[in-house]
């Protein structure tokens, strides 16, 4: 087979099942592509030996008739936020440069137990804080996409930028990501792939380097909606080691991938627009509404009145939780240590050297909003507004099944753009943050190209634990959009 790396998970599983290819062959094709595309900087740590060993084991299982399902033998990239036993896990930070976990995160263990083959640890924004993968200590990721007729390096989005570049550049069949305010969906939109964040609590956070614990949620980056369903099925599930893990059996996500929205009610929230948003995004959104309407869905306008407060709410809640979570990096138990004359000096010098500028900024904001006298005015206030945002969604879902919005307010931008103003960078997540704050499942589906030939995604959001509705509507959107563009050279 000539285009092994271009296979979806579903097609790879079928080809493996029929003996048309082997996991070793698929894995070797991906390893060769990773080595030929190091200029993208999609991986922090490549694990070709481990990948080949797991591929061999997968082929041996299959030969004995013990294949474990559609992920068995499929080569994937693992975001470097998931602790992997015996494999360095940096979270994109200097402070964890030499950290080799002695345990495996639940999500990566689940995938391993389903037979998935890990190709390496994907690059990411430092400690998952960023929207363009430029905050990584290990250098920015270059998107495999370029603007028509221009030779400017573009960002892949972030924080799961290495994962998105690997999947869209055909270096891996799929990848894991994590999404705190949009870190799966925004890079998926920028690179023309599918990115899905399930309901908060579907995927265990155990063994995943923490950013903002009430928001962090793992999910898949894939090239089809069905693949997202297949991969989520393997990643998710109740885990007693995470007290916020949902104690529910998983529904059959793949079975929900039916491109039929007849009778479904799709809400169009009028607040999901931004001054200066490119016309191409508005046009694509209108096109999306029309597609679903033409396929038999009932579309109606809804209002989510607190949407404009979602981003400022997020930039209190997330830094507050980050400043608390990141207190663990003290130079004592693991990670970087910079010696000092006193314990406090050791802490201060270690953290000044170990954290990059954006992480320091957020930890300082967090320390401030949680400090004595300000906690109620900032953190408690933000958690109250968060309740109102959740209520906006709950009210909307009384009338509709899913919501359709743009994923991001722009296409991918150039490396070096938007770098001076933190708030301009934060605006990347303006359409993804509300669902994060409310803990709702959401998915970005590649739906079209802008005038520069760059991909644009549309986002669908569903109610708590309504992933099946999400996959159904996303399958229909995917079928209507029939997005087939690939980055140059792929």
């Amino acid at each position, binding site marked *: 087979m000539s285009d092994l790396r271009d296979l979806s998970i579903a097609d790879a599983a079928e080809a493996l099942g029929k003996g048309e290819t082997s996991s070793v062959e698929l894995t070797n094709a991906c390893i060769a592509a990773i080595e030929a595309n190091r200029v993208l900087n999609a991986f922090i740590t490549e694990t070709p030996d481990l990948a080949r060993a797991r591929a061999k084991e997968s082929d041996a299982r299959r030969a004995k008739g013990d294949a474990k399902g559609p992920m068995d033998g499929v080569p994937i990239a693992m975001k470097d936020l998931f602790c992997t036993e015996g494999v360095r896990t940096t979270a994109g930070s200097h402070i964890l440069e*030499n950290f*080799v*976990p*002695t345990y495996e995160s639940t999500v990566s263990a689940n995938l391993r137990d389903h037979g998935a083959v890990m190709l390496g640890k994907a690059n990411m924004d430092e400690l998952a804080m960023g929207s363009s993968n430029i905050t990584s200590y290990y250098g920015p990721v270059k998107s495999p996409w370029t603007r028509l007729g221009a030779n400017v390096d573009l960002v892949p989005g972030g924080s799961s930028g290495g994962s998105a570049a690997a999947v869209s550049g055909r270096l891996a069949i799929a990848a894991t990501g994590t999404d705190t305010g949009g870190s799966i969906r925004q890079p998926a939109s920028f690179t023309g792939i599918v990115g899905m964040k399930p*309901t*908060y*609590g579907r995927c265990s956070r155990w063994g995943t380097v923490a950013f903002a614990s009430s928001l962090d949620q793992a999910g898949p980056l894939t090239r089809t909606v069905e693949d997202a369903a297949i991969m989520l099925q393997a990643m998710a599930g109740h885990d*007693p080691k995470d*007290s*916020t893990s*949902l104690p529910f059996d998983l529904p059959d996500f793949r079975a929900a991938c039916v491109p039929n929205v007849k009778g479904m009610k799709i809400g169009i929230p009028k607040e999901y627009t931004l001054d200066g948003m490119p016309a191409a995004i508005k046009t694509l959104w209108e096109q999306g509404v029309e597609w679903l309407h033409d396929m038999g869905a009932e579309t109606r306008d809804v209002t989510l009145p*607190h949407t404009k*407060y979602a981003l*400022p*709410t997020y*930039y*209190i809640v997330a830094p507050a939780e980050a*400043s608390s979570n990141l207190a663990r990096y*003290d*130079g*004592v*138990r*693991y*990670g970087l*240590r910079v*010696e*000092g004359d006193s314990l*406090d*000096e050791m*802490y*201060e*010098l270690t*953290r*000044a050297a170990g954290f990059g500028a954006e992480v*320091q*900024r957020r*930890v*300082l*904001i*967090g*320390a*401030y909003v949680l*400090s004595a006298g300000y906690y109620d005015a*900032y953190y*408690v206030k*933000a*958690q*109250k*507004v*968060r*309740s*109102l945002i*959740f209520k906006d969604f709950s009210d909307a879902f009384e009338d509709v099944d899913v919501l359709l919005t743009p994923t991001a307010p722009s296409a991918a931008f150039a490396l070096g753009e938007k770098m001076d103003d*933190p*708030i301009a960078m934060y605006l990347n997540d303006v359409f993804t943050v509300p669902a994060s*704050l*409310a*803990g709702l499942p959401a998915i970005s589906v590649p739906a079209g190209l802008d005038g520069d030939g760059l991909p644009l995604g549309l986002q669908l959001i569903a109610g*708590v*634990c309504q992933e099946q509705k999400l996959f159904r509507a996303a399958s229909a959107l995917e079928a209507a959009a029939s997005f087939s563009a690939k980055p140059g050279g792929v």
Partner: protein
Amino acid sequence: MPLSKDDVQKIAFLARIRVPEERLDAIAGELNGIIGWVEQLAEVETGDVEPMTSVVAMPAPLRDDVVTDGAIADKVTANAPDPIGPFYAVPKVVE
């Protein structure tokens, strides 16, 4: 009231991040930009709204009070920067 240089110094100590003197003004500017922007939340009426605590209301799970692991000191200290035997080592704390 915008944060002063002294405020930033105090916050940096709370966060245990050493900020060089010559960076304090620039960081005060950045933090004031962000804090000024998030303060728009003050205009939202939240009188009797409860702060959000969870997505799915469920009681905190309890587990049996039993030992489930242990005797793995070597694993626990495997990544310690400067361990002495099965212990973490830090600069002298008590004079």
